[in-house]
């Protein structure tokens, strides 16, 4: 067990990669074996992530140096800086890794039945594992160039999965758009990494954070990094690829795309809080993130109201939910003045991180419901649907849970995190109340959006064409059930979740000095 723990950070990433490389070979042997193989890989990765989470929450940041004699020797003897690639996992990256792995497991479980009658499934499962490996690589690494490489893996495998329904023109078009804007953004990230390398001849995030002096070149690198990662996360003016891609991709893929945009959001937080931790002009950058967040909330919700394609509509609400996360974290960043953060700022960061976890589950459930409706009726246009509640009982119940959770109705988890975001953004000095008012009204509008979906797709009289619609198959219902159970538990006992995993993650995010000392402190 100790062997697994010391090598846990790299095993979590290398295992899905190994699985992805073997899936084509295994699926030549027997397709049924491939599904089981993928699920066992995901279960074992999940077990390793839980092991790592327990250890990181117990005794702080864990460092793993790739290729060094003792795997914790960050700075080699006789040198003043880390030269190898170091995987630095603190409480925040472990939280994100937990979200990614659990949603990947649910997606693989769901797609075993959802994608059953499609060809080329070995390519599908290979890309699914690669997408998971890319996300985990982004979340666990402590090296800036390595972050770029795994960001590229995530965006390429994401685009290939969006284009999986090659028989429809729209999915190729959506994949091209996602790929183009993803590549241009990643190239700007590479340009910023090259700028920082040119100045400090270092690629390790911890070492760079200790060396950075916010010169003109550092500001340009900051702008490129913040712009590219905000675009990959999907904040408003650059959000248009998100509804396109989420509307056209298969439902089980869309959950992974949601978590991949959360991984880009994590990279944005890592840049703003840790890389530029001690030099950042927190007021300006904090307010930039807040403005991006509030714009995302407003535009995401209002545009969702007029959509009539099921998963495209949820794609727009995904943009709005990213806005809530940006608002929560932006308020925290804005209130962070030279190293000390006010208590409402720390609470805001906790609210933002809690909302990341809640929202990944809520949107996941809603996209799975959209997939179940598409699986049973073959249509995803809300104008043609109606009266599905008569036949699809369980899917309707899951949709009601998802609806209550996403739009923040009281007993659900969405409400707990949104309540924290409302209250803390209210106390921000210059414009605080306006922010929380916009956030509250938009949440009500989101409820209206989903009531529209609920009425047009599920309620209403039993239409003739959906007379003999069957409910979603068992394994899809189990996948949705897992998410629904998590949503209800997090909703009823939010404080236990916050105290166990969200508070350490927020403290780890704020405490950039601890991040640096872990690297420069040597063994």
């Amino acid at each position, binding site marked *: 067990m100790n062997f697994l723990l010391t090598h846990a950070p790299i095993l979590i990433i290398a295992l899905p990669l190994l699985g992805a490389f073997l899936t084509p070979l295994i699926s030549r042997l027997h397709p049924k074996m491939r599904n089981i193989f993928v699920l066992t890989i995901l279960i074992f990765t999940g077990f390793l992530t839980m092991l790592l989470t327990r250890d990181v929450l117990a005794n702080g940041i864990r460092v793993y140096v790739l290729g060094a004699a003792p795997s914790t020797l960050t700075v080699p003897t006789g040198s003043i800086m880390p030269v190898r690639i170091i995987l630095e996992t603190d409480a925040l990256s472990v939280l994100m890794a937990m979200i990614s792995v659990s949603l990947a497991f649910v997606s693989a479980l769901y797609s075993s039945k959802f994608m059953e009658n499609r060809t080329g499934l070995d390519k599908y499962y290979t890309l699914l594992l690669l997408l998971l490996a890319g996300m985990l690589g982004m979340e666990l690494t402590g090296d800036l160039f390595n972050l770029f490489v795994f960001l590229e893996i995530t965006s*390429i495998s994401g685009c*290939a999965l969006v284009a999986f329904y090659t028989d429809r023109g729209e999915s190729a078009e959506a994949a*091209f758009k996602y*790929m*183009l804007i993803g*590549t*241009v953004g990643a190239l700007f990230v*590479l340009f910023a990494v090259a700028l920082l*390398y040119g100045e400090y*001849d270092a690629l390790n995030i911890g070492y760079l954070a200790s060396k950075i002096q916010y010169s003109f070149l550092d500001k340009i690198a900051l702008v490129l990094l913040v712009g590219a990662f905000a675009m990959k996360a999907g904040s408003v003016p650059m959000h248009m690829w998100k509804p396109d891609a989420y509307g056209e991709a298969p439902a089980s893929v869309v959950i992974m795309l949601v978590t991949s945009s959360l991984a880009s959001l994590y990279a944005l937080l890592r840049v703003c809080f840790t890389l530029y931790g001690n030099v950042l002009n927190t007021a300006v950058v904090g307010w930039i993130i807040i403005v991006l967040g509030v714009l995302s909330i407003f535009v995401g919700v209002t545009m969702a109201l007029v959509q009539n394609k099921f998963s495209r509509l949820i794609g727009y609400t995904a943009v709005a939910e990213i806005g809530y996360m940006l608002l929560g974290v932006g308020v925290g960043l804005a209130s962070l003045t030279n190293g000390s953060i006010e208590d409402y700022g720390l609470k805001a960061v906790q609210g933002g991180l809690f909302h990341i976890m809640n929202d990944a589950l809520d949107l996941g459930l809603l996209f799975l419901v959209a997939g179940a409706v598409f699986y049973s009726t073959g249509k995803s246009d809300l104008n043609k649907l109606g009266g599905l509640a008569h036949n699809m009982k369980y899917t309707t119940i899951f949709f009601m849970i998802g609806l209550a959770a996403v739009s923040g109705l009281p007993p659900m988890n969405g409400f707990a995190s949104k309540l924290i975001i409302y209250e803390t953004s209210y106390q921000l000095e210059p414009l605080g109340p306006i922010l929380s008012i916009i956030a509250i009204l938009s949440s009500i509008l989101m409820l209206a959006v989903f009531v529209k979906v609920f009425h047009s797709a599920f309620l209403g009289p039993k239409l003739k064409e959906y007379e003999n619609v069957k409910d979603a198959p068992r394994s899809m219902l189990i996948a949705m059930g897992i998410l629904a159970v998590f949503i209800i538990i997090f909703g009823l006992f939010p404080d236990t979740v916050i105290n166990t995993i969200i508070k350490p993650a927020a403290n780890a995010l704020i405490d950039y000095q601890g991040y640096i000392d872990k690297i420069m402190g040597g063994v």
Partner: protein
Amino acid sequence: MIQHFPFIAVVILIGLGIYACMFKRNLIKIVIGVSLIESGVNLFLITLGYVKGGVAPIYTNAPGTNMVLPTPQALTLTSIVIGLATTALMLSFAVLIYKHYSSIDAKTRRLKG
């Protein structure tokens, strides 16, 4: 000023690439624009690592020991292969779009609003 010519060439390449991505209608030209940005960033990485009078960092029959920085070359190797991967994928999506829409103009699209 002469010291900054390589970096100016980099910025011109990246500027051309962005211009092509923003204003060109043909999908293939947009992909060419992206590969222009890629070559610009690769050139930037390489020019960062040059040392005046330096030799390639290879010890086999090396003429001298004043060597150029090896890391940018390693990073550029990675970014060239990534450029190959993205260009190949984008071109195959363009083929797919042409197959369905029988036109590769950015204006013919169905996902809007």
